[in-house]
């Protein structure tokens, strides 16, 4: 499975990664090589095989819907890039 440069640009956009035009050829080659490596999966017939998501086939444990966490807003915001009045600041979204 080979990718071309427009595939790479599309994937980068989906992944929210800015990719420099100069780097596109190298990504195209490396990502195509990785897809070649995984391509032999397609030769195996798995039509009746149930996918395995958890290696122990365990299902998600549920808990009672109780409040267990205290409010740690101030502590957690100490590592934020920008805050004001307890809010996370981001560039303006609505004009």
């Amino acid at each position, binding site marked *: 499975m080979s990718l071309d440069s427009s*595939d*790479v640009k599309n*994937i*980068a956009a*989906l*992944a*929210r*990664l*800015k*990719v420099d035009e100069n780097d596109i050829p190298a*990504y195209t080659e*490396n*990502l195509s*090589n*990785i*897809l*070649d*490596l*995984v*391509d*032999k*999966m*397609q030769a*195996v017939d*798995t039509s009746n*095989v*149930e*996918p*395995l*998501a*958890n*290696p*122990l086939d*365990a299902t*998600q*444990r549920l*808990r009672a819907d109780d409040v267990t966490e205290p409010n*740690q807003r101030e*502590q*957690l915001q*100490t*590592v*934020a*890039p*920008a805050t004001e009045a307890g809010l*996370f600041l*981001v*560039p*303006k*979204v609505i004009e």
Partner: protein
Amino acid sequence: MFDKTLAELAQGLEAGEFSSTELTQSYLDQINQQDTQFNSYITVTDELALEQAKAADAARAAGNAQPLTGVPIAHKDIFCTQGVRTSCGSKMLDNFIAPYQSTVAEKFNQAGTVTLGKTNLDEFAMGSSTESSFYGATKNPWDTSRVPGGSSGGSAAAVAAKLAPAATGTDTGGSIRQPASFCGITGLKPTYGRVSRWGMIAYGSSLDQGGPMTRTAEDAALMLNVMAGFDPKDSTSMDKAVPDYTATLNNPLKGLRIGVPKEYFSDGLDAGIAAAIQAAIKQFESMGAVIKEISLPRTDLAIPSYYIIAMAEASTNLSRYDGVKFGYRCDNPENLEDMYLRTRAEGFGEEVKRRIMIGTYALSAGYYDAYYRKAQQLRRLIKDDYTQAFEQVDVIMGPTTPTQPWTLGAKENDPVSMYLEDLYTISVNLAGLPGMTIPCGLVDNLPVGLQVVGNYFDEALLLNIGHQFQLATDWHTKSAV
């Protein structure tokens, strides 16, 4: 002092031969003098360590010492340590002072151990050489022109260079076992769900598992006694009793059924490694074990299945790094979209970006069934191979790695050749089984590791096997420094 195992240090502290403060200061001095050669630590926590050592000495004086009280260890810089930078080897988290404690770090604090520092790793644990770290490559103490393996290469090198008696690691596709093998130490990846993943920065959530990296199997048992156990904060943690892993170390191995998969001795395996592994298996035979050739027919499907699953989970897990709540944010973003794109482009390194992109592709509309679903179906077939094997044998043995540590930079521009190095370790993560590596030889003065894979929750048996081997041989005492 630096030659002592964790068990010996614990005895020395108990006997009053030295205090934790003296021991900790010696290790800190040693790190400050020696680690420029190896770059095994990202952060050395001098102040915290001496504070913890003082508290450990006080606890011992008051008669409140536990087995590991006052013993210094290092943590892979993937475990959140409250108040201490937790970088995961990435520029993205270079400024991240963890505001909470991982369960593993908390358990060690409760056990009274001293934290010497945070060890180097491949960025976000994505790599097999510790070269992709934002903080520079770690060097193999056996030969500083070679890689220590990865991703827990800093922990492996620190233990091998005697800059920590033991360390924590994490293993998504071999990241404890492969560097432990490359650096000539003992490493154990427990059963998925045995050790809490809370506060352990996520790479591939259905594969990641923390474990000990030590000089001996006995030390690994002491470490696992602290690390293992149910944690309600981790929804994949298993609620299952934890045995005392030191209690069964001396069980005899007579009658132990060892399976040796023929697929693990194929063309890609280095001849010197193959000979060392065969000799180790012979050693077990002389100790009363029964050797049986087995087959794991889907071995060659493990690499494609693993890389799709790991990269898909990585792309999802790493979507949280958006420059909003923590971590790196680019300068002067023009708008929200620009902030996401540039924060992630500038904050992540090349290998991480490659994996995010492949993972994104494998999960994208139109490709999900062909890649992600297919990989999970193969995962079940790989698990079924093991289930069948464990009907005939108690453990499976083989090489940990197909080759010896390569030269720094040798695989830098060829990610695929690096992925192929994980052949023997990744299927164990796909199946969620416990796996251990122990040193079993030297080839060209570089260490060789024997991998022992057990059935679910059979960590005690693996450690028993490791300990008995280390009583009968001296490969684990061979030293890089």
